[in-house]
């Protein structure tokens, strides 16, 4: 039951991505191409998603706990640092080069499109590389070789 509901929530997300155009790099890149073939559609995706989530979250979080789990696990950090801003900036450079973001690419994998597979393989490689780099720098910091 829990897994079925979780699966269906994924279906709703994947259908929304498919309908919205977020899985289409040509459309995504045109949204950012203000001085060329501008297509403002993505503003409607973000607007629709944020509006529904804003009001829906208020109702969902008003309950004492989620339906299937003991408590809510909402990100609690409030730290705004170079890592957050720099990491997000690097994400944007990659998004601007490829036209896919993770939330757009994962549902699109379901079509078997080879370009989506190529992008997702590189995405996973990047995430694993980041994890290795973080571990490495944590070790070096522990040993006092670099400053925190």
């Amino acid at each position: 039951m829990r897994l079925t509901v979780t699966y269906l929530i994924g279906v709703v997300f994947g259908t929304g991505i498919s309908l919205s155009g977020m899985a289409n790099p040509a459309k995504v890149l045109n949204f950012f191409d203000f001085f060329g073939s501008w297509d403002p559609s993505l503003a409607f995706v973000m607007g629709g998603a944020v509006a529904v989530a804003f009001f829906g979250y208020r109702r969902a979080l008003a309950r004492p706990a989620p339906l299937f789990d003991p408590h809510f696990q909402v990100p609690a950090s409030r730290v705004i640092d170079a890592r957050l801003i720099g990491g997000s900036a690097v994400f944007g450079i990659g998004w601007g080069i490829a036209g896919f973001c993770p939330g757009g690419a994962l549902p699109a994998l379901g079509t078997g499109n080879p370009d989506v597979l190529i992008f997702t393989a590189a995405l996973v490689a990047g995430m694993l590389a980041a994890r290795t780099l973080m571990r490495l720098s944590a070790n070096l910091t522990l040993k006092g070789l670099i400053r925190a």
Partner: protein
Amino acid sequence: MTTEFTPLASLAGGALIGLAAVALMAARGRVFGATGILAGLLSPASSGDWVWRAALLAGMLTGPWVYMAAAGSFPAIDVPVSTPALLLGGLLVGLGVSYGSGCTSGHGVCGLARLSPRSITATLSFMASTAATVYLVRHGIGG
């Protein structure tokens, strides 16, 4: 290449994305971030943690098939960039979302909806750098 302006389909698609985010919060108490879901699949905290993420991902992959059932074809995926660009872009996205702790869905939808200062900052950062990158690629470098 130009693409057709699709305000209604995009708004409806966005509303479904928002609905999924709300449902995941109501059912499992989690934000719907593609980065977090994928990262948790790559190194799960426990087998139970892996299973719900796998179920969610399986549902996401089914989305284009639901679209196909309704529209008669898969959603358009037009890739106006080269394979090396996909590889470089994918690698940078993977690095960036790991250090930035999220992407368009986690920060851009769930975080903005929670009015999280971190997510607002992250979203401004990646929207600006994406726009700058697209400008440079299309109009700056020999464009």
